[in-house]
């Protein structure tokens, strides 16, 4: 998943759609239709909040439209979109830190989330709770790398920082999560230890 979801043919199509969209918004609609799922999914996994994910998905496309004239075709279009979305997501997480936020439980749909093995689900819930304790950027870096599967360099580019910074943030994030899980009931580890 670390690679851009667009296949080579998709990349060519994207370039053509961008070219057309530069003349008006109609072609841009096709880009929105094509990548709304990618953007929404990425933001949702960062924020765990459906309403915020919808808002930021809209905002991502609006900003992309405004900046389309400066889009560099050398960068895969979906990567460019996700970069905008991720930065908006980090800002949203920072804002959320300052206000009472809905807990993860409020936005969960337990029945729908039981698609993974029980022990993985239990551990995932603990991971999500632990992630909520991280600062916004390490949290975003963690989700992008370990959940979305982007490489370190890609994550660094998306977050506007250096690869080494991402690496150290991921190290600390993993240490924090491991420490958090260490205090969890033994069964939550799936009997790993």
């Amino acid at each position: 998943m670390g690679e851009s979801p667009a296949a080579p043919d998709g990349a060519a199509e994207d370039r053509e759609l961008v070219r057309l969209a530069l003349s008006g918004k109609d072609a841009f609609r096709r880009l929105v239709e094509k990548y709304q799922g990618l953007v929404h999914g990425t933001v949702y996994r960062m924020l765990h909040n459906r309403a915020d994910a919808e808002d930021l998905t809209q905002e991502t496309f609006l900003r992309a439209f405004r900046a389309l004239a400066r889009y560099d075709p050398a960068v895969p279009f979906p990567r460019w979109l996700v970069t905008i979305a991720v930065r908006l997501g980090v800002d949203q997480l920072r804002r959320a830190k300052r206000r009472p936020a809905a807990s993860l439980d409020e936005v969960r749909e337990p029945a729908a989330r039981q698609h993974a093995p029980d022990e993985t689900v239990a551990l995932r819930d603990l991971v999500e709770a632990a992630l909520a304790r991280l600062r916004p950027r390490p949290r975003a870096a963690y989700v992008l790398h370990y959940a979305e599967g982007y490489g370190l360099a890609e994550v660094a580019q998306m977050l506007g920082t250096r690869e080494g910074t991402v690496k150290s943030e991921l190290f600390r994030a993993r240490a924090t999560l491991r420490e958090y899980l260490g205090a969890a009931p033994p069964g939550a580890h799936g009997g790993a230890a």
Partner: protein
Amino acid sequence: MNCRAVRKRLLEPGGGARPEVAAHVAGCPACTAEARVLSRLEAASREVGLPVPAPSPDLVDRVMSRIEPGAGPGRRGVLTAPRVLWAFAAAGTLVVVTGTYLAGPPGPPRERTEEVPPTPAVPAGSPTEPAGPGPQTVAPPGIQSRLLAYGTTLKLWGPLDAQANLNPRSAWLNARPDYCQDANEGDLRYGEGGEVLDVPGANPPETGIVACGEGPLDAVVPAGQALQANAPVLLNQNYLIRSPSQRGWFRAKVVRHVPGTCAESQYERIEPAEPEAAAPQRQQAK
């Protein structure tokens, strides 16, 4: 390697794949157990946030409805988010936003909005001088403009390609939107009129600011004057410097400056002033 070193390596991204780590883990039951826990942690991390709910069926329509008919990218044409306008209005800020307003995502009023002057006026001659309720485009194509509310903190991601008017009470900034966003832990703090008050860890305000991003650009903010891309940098003057090779901002005297890059420029670093000494000046700046 001992167990402690191995467990530290295991926490690094891809650390478990290192040959020396793998060799130790293979012969150490305790580290094997730890590696299994971390492996399960990674597996669970891949499930974070899943399943993702489908976006609303009308999401595309809502996006497109916020783009004015016939609008082209990089020009005016994106409608400002009503909630953002409301947030500014609620804060008592006279929002004069261009049609290419760089809107932040909908959310609550910005920090320190209680300090927003009730009716800040825009002085004559300002590029954002109000001209009725409608938006006014002032930024050149590809550059977007936004009003800076009092206390706004901006984070500059990279090349600014920016212009700004930092005159009192009419602060605005034109910048490439992908390089400039609000941030809670930002690098610049703007005052009532958008003047640069300070940069954390580097007070008091200096002659100006040089921001060197990854790209070929400098931005200079002489106090109270315009922020300009590729503005001349005066030698032997103190500036706040930001460069890719340095963490955060630092005060420095510019010894040699090569426009477009910090790498070939020379700065004589100055230690940050004592906070006590900075406080009165910041107050004065407000």
